[in-house]
């Protein structure tokens, strides 16, 4: 137990924890929304995120090239990368809904089998990225591809576009630019999504379907559209998460989604699954506590801290910190 380390670096640990938590929270939105509407664990959502990280990576590498971008250019590159990640993740999420879920929902299949289908889809998506180079090799494209990035089976890093300079200091603790960007944009996106679901007509449809799918259908809500919308929104948020993750961590791999997906799902459950604000709270709490825990017990216990936190919280609040409420949310 390294208490002195924890107390000496408290502010820094908290801020990096919040940055991690923000990424968890954004991914958790995808789990929580799908769960709220369909009561299904969208196991393949982690791969939606993974594709977003690769979209960010490719876009940045293509745009940066060999030059060293300056101030305004950096901003443009970031915007393009963010857009690419959101488009790719959103598209993957929509495809996932179409091929892995809709056939099952139509047949009213047992819920567990949808989980298996999602697991299958998750394997397929991750492996498609993994075997990308072999397939490219068949068409003689491997060298062309390697000019940009090598195989997805090993860690690929992206050029550093946000200089890791200190933005400001609290006391003697340095708060870095990246962390601030990550936390602020994540919170911004979450507030935007929350308002969208609360105020827009589509959002009302989503909430109605979550609350009572049959009555919602009778009232003229197109349930297929609502489900598509849910997946799309989750995918877009995963794209944002992927972009922010790449800003902070800067490396990705074909199986990067697995652990992050589990963590994000944990965050969703922690905050109360099906509850958008719960995802934010759960993500931030998980990120911060995990960071403190790894400072206290050593980095190798990081994930153990996260899961023990989950078990302890569920023992005292069996439906998560804020409870389940996508359907019950009132404006």
């Amino acid at each position: 137990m390294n208490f002195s380390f924890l107390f000496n670096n408290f502010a820094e640990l908290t801020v990096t924890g919040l940055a991690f938590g923000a990424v968890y929270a954004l991914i958790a939105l995808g789990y929580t929304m799908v769960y709220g509407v369909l009561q299904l664990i969208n196991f393949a959502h982690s791969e939606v995120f993974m594709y977003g990280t690769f979209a960010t990576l490719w876009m940045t590498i293509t745009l940066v090239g060999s030059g060293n971008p300056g101030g305004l250019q950096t901003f443009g590159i970031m915007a393009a990368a963010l857009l690419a990640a959101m488009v790719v993740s959103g598209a993957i999420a929509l495809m996932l809904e179409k091929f892995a879920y809709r056939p099952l929902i139509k047949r009213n299949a047992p819920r567990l089998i949808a989980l298996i289908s999602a697991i299958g889809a998750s394997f397929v998506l991750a492996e498609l990225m993994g075997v990308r180079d072999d397939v490219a090799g068949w068409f003689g494209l491997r060298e062309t591809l390697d000019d940009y990035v090598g195989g997805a089976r090993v860690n690929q890093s992206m050029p550093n576009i946000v200089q890791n300079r200190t933005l400001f200091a609290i006391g003697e603790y340095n708060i870095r630019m990246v962390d601030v960007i990550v936390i602020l944009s994540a919170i911004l996106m979450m507030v935007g999504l929350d308002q969208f679901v609360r105020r827009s007509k589509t959002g009302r449809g989503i909430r109605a379907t979550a609350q009572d799918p049959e009555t919602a259908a009778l009232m003229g809500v197109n349930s297929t559209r609502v489900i598509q919308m849910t997946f799309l929104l989750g995918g877009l948020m995963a794209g944002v998460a992927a972009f922010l993750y790449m800003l902070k961590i800067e490396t990705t791999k074909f199986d990067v989604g697995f652990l992050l997906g589990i963590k994000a799902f944990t965050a969703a459950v922690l905050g109360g699954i099906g509850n958008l604000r719960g995802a934010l709270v759960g993500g931030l709490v998980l990120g911060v506590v995990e960071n403190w825990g790894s400072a206290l017990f050593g980095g190798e216990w990081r994930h153990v801290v996260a899961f023990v936190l989950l078990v302890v919280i569920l023992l005292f609040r069996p439906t998560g910190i804020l409870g389940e409420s996508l359907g019950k949310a009132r404006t």
Partner: protein
Amino acid sequence: MSTSVSATSGTKSKSKSRLGFVDRLTNLPKLVKILLWVLLALFLYALPLLEPPLLSTPGTDFGGVLFTVTIYCLVALGLNIVVGYAGLLDLGYVGFYAIGAYTVAILTSFHANWPFLLAVPVAVVATMVSGVLLGAPTLRVRGDYLAIVTLGFGEIIRLAAVNTEWLGDARGISKIDRPPSIELFEIPHLFWEGGTPLLDPDDTTVFLEFGVLDQIPYYWLGLTVVILMLIADRLIKDSRVGRAWEATREDEDAAELMGVPTFRFKLLAFSTGAFVGGLAGALYASRQSFINPLSFLLLFSILFLAAVVVGGQGNRWGVLVGAFLVAYLPERFRDFSEFRVLVFGLALMVLAIFRPEGLLPPRRTLRAKQAGQELAAAEEGDHGEETRVRV
């Protein structure tokens, strides 16, 4: 009108003929049935010696693959009790498997020098206790929350093994004791030349020598345990306990009102499942003689669950088929190593979409589905009549 009648009668006769085979089997005299079972068992025991051309695995030891299949069968039977009978979604089953394996490893090699046969009961009891310890606080949590809690449990067990020196950390534990050998006689293998089987006098298996190279005795041990498990499973399923599990799964509140102490039965299902998982882990550790945390990745929990659900949760023969597919197919198609997982994932999706009840769903599910379809057909028929009258 007439066409619709003939269509329904057609489907009925079809389903009848499909049931017919099973019926004819069940209607056989008891003696013949027992004989058939014995023949099937003998064939299974002899399978690694026969090395049938299409079935056997080129490149990897067939006996070893078959042993892996039996381990998966055992695990699937155990998980079927938790998921299929009691309806508790457990995503961390590999945790129990790991506890069984690690207990044997610690007792026979790392911290003590016990013989294998003494360590197994301890390992199984330790796993059951861990099942109760995990279940007691978490089984009050319902549905999908249980899934994520158990998933966390599986990961905690693995990470604890990685980070604790007392458990051999990431390097693992080696020199785990093997079951005691009784070397009685040698059995020659077959090898196939074209379509003709020939005896191979150079390639023999010593009857019950649990050595390093020949995996077949382990397969025999595993198969025996699976057969014993199947008998036990049948006894439990048809007992009061099995009915209580099903009642709890179908409607927990109704079961509670009918006087079934659901929590206690869920805990029992959990620890029974843990028992079987621990046993499988112990066998696995002894065969490998070496374990490290990489043998207990979360991926295995998912594969185990896939075996149960794909095969048909709640039907012991179904989960055996599922376990066979999940364990055997990746080994058989090792040549496609790079595309193995991709094809496996596709297979899971296709199976899920085309056989949502699993390959061999339990008869109860089939009956329920049939009743549902008949109900729907009756309702539709009414509608059809109505419209016709209106026209």
